[in-house]
């Protein structure tokens, strides 16, 4: 079968993910794209005799190197040399969406334009003359309604046709008075070898693109180019704005020519207006924001627990049967111990929380898909500015409740280095889903009557610690102010169940894989350390793990949990925070043993202190690695040391403070 590469791109809020899901279904994975270590979703579909491999780029408005996302998108476009580039556009705002299309044509890509959300355009009273648009742009255009899976077959056909028949780009924007300057730069560039077309390079240089400038610096023509550009800026100082305005002039013209306006059916727009007055209102907006977060964790907890209990029983049943089976065939005792105490006890006690993880990401996808998350950024903007963060910092931080790793990657939409670093430092304190099993375990034992509120308080304390960290580091390391917040607010709409399920499944799958990988091996190491030396009782104080833990436990005494088991659990939690529970499982021999053992070691007070410590004390190894990747080794070290320090301080202060009452 033939194989072709397709890149999916488009502005944010155009339903790109829905189209990606509709095209590829479950044939997708999140992989690291070689060259830049960045999470790019990859999927595939087969149409006629061809297999299409699809890459889903982050949503961007342009291809300048204004934000990290745009830089990444452009790099991939240039290096991948895809057979087809599909631009998912919001049909109701052709003018702005065509802007990206024109940049892609300047990059000489083989573009297919997908006019998505056509139902919204129709509600707004717009009709697009697709044939005319195809003639003007010289690209294939397809109408789709992603949420209803309308037009997906036509889109596949268009991708297929475009991949079979690659046309030269015929549409060029005439930049009028600037054309002369562009050709001057083109001439100075000569036949420079670069992955970009010459005209694209020339225009970007005139638009002061920092990345392209840096690239030119490495070439022999640099001196010459610099002189030419300086000369251009002397006689045409606002050429940068002029070029952008000309491009918008062109897309405005095309959009007017191809769009017919009819009667407006504004129901959805009116609804969004009403909701927006409420959701970004300084008072009601904040209140509803807190309510949403609180409700999320209650749902995660209440809907998840029946399934959790079911899994618990299943693992206990398995452990019992394996033991009696092994007993009946006279296998050595250590094998039974490894399988039941170690693996089922350890991995099982982590895996039972799978339903909670699934529900958490399901609800998160709903908040994101409905358009609410963008509003949350505005609600928190004022607070964020006071702290020295950007309003948009709220989005990575909220995503951090799911998993810190993609959340830290999401800081790429921030424009300044300062905002990125501060948000990266604050995000690990957002309590991720890996920490959830620890809270579920402890609240289940010690705070049965108000589990939801206890859970909520931990998330609040984590958030507060994150904000405090940002404030502190801002005043020490950074002086400049954040740029003002500007963000598109998509229309509110009912979240797409399919998107929610795919997103929840994807994250659950990662969780299962983690349980089978890093947690599995962690648990085996813990079991070995607990089983040996042979003279010791299993996981007793005289086992290796007991000896190791006792040394560390001294440090934890002031926080109320100076037991070697707690120390070892926290130590292994560094690898993955689920292992805190996994360690207890392996050491105490499964679910049933844990409850009894923990109730005798902890009091409600020290249990809460332990949860605080787990919440704050250190991001997991994967998070430290992603901090290093995104912000550099210096910040990774600072984040690690700071979090251990502040985690210990908070746990000790809490325990010592409340012990008096």
């Amino acid at each position, binding site marked *: 079968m033939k194989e072709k590469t397709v890149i999916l791109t488009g502005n944010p809020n155009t339903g790109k993910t829905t189209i990606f899901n509709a095209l590829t279904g479950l044939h997708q994975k999140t992989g690291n794209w070689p060259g830049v270590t960045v999470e790019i979703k990859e999927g595939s579909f087969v149409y006629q005799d061809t297999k299409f491999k699809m890459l889903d780029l982050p949503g961007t408005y342009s291809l300048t190197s*204004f934000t990290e996302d745009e830089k990444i998108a452009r790099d991939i476009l240039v290096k991948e040399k895809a057979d087809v580039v599909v631009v998912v556009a919001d049909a109701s705002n052709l003018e702005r969406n065509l802007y990206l299309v024109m940049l892609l044509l300047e990059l000489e890509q083989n573009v297919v334009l997908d006019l998505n959300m056509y139902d919204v355009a129709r509600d707004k009273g*717009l009709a697009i003359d697709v044939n005319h648009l195809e003639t003007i742009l010289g690209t294939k255009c397809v109408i789709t309604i992603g949420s209803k899976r309308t037009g997906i077959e036509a889109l596949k056909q268009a991708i297929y046709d475009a991949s079979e028949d690659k046309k030269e780009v015929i549409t060029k924007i005439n930049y009028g008075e600037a054309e002369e300057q562009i050709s001057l730069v083109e001439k100075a560039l000569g036949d420079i070898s670069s992955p970009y077309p010459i005209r694209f390079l020339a225009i970007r240089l005139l638009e002061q693109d920092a990345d392209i400038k840096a690239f030119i610096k490495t070439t022999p023509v640099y001196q010459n180019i610099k002189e030419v550009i300086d000369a251009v800026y002397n006689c045409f100082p606002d050429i940068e704005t002029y070029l952008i305005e000309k491009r918008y002039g062109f897309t405005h013209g095309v959009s007017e020519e191809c769009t017919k306006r009819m009667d407006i059916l504004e129901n959805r727009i009116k609804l969004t207006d009403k909701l927006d007055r409420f959701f970004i209102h300084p008072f009601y907006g904040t209140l509803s924001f807190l309510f949403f977060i609180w409700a999320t964790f209650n749902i995660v907890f209440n809907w998840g627990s029946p399934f959790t209990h079911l899994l618990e029983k299943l693992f206990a049943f398995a452990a019992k049967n394996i033991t009696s089976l092994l007993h009946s065939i006279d296998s050595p005792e250590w094998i039974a111990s490894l399988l039941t105490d170690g693996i089922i006890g350890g991995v099982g006690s982590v895996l039972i929380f799978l339903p909670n993880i699934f529900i958490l990401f399901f609800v998160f996808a709903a908040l994101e898909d409905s358009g609410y998350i963008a509003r949350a950024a505005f609600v928190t903007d004022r607070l964020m500015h006071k702290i020295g963060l950007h309003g948009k910092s709220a989005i990575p931080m909220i995503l951090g409740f799911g998993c810190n790793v993609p959340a830290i990657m999401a800081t790429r939409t921030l*424009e300044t280095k300062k905002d990125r670093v501060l948000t990266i430092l604050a995000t690990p304190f957002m309590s991720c889903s890996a920490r959830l099993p620890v809270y579920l375990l402890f609240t289940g034992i010690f705070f049965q009557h108000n589990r939801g509120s206890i859970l909520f308080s931990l998330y609040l304390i984590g958030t507060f610690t994150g904000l405090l960290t940002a404030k502190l580091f801002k005043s020490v390391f950074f002086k400049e102010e954040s740029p*003002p*917040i500007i*963000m598109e607010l998509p229309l509110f709409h009912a979240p797409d169940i399919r998107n929610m399920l795919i997103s929840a499944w994807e994250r659950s799958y990662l969780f299962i894989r983690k349980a089978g990988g890093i947690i599995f091996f962690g648990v085996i190491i813990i079991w070995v350390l607990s089983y040996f030396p042979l003279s010791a009782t299993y996981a007793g104080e005289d086992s290796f793990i007991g000896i190791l833990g006792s040394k560390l436990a001294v440090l934890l005494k002031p926080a109320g949990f100076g037991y070697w088991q707690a120390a070892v659990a926290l130590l292994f939690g560094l690898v993955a925070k689920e292992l805190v529970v996994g360690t207890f499982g392996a050491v105490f021999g499964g679910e049933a043993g844990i409850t009894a053992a923990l109730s005798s070691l902890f009091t409600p007070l020290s249990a809460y202190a332990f949860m605080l410590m787990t919440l704050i004390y250190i991001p997991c190894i994967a998070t430290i690695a992603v901090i290093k990747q995104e912000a550099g080794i210096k910040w990774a070290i600072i984040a690690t040391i700071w979090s251990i320090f502040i985690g210990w301080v908070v746990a000790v202060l809490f325990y010592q403070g409340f012990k008096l009452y």
Partner: protein
Amino acid sequence: MGPLVKSSPGKYKIVQITTACQAAKKRLMMLGVLVGDEIELIKPSPGPVIIEKGGTRIGLGQGMASCIIVNKITKETK
């Protein structure tokens, strides 16, 4: 004529973006909002404002909204 942050809901033409927001101006341009454009103010201050242009709504922080100088479009000016 006045800054967007002090305006009431309605249709406006953008006259100028003051130099205090020079860096953010480019960001605004990427979202399709240029000097000379007609916009509609949907939600005024206090708090962030929401404007609409070409069917897209864009939220702006108060800081940004005070940098955008607009002229009200009345029936006569049209």
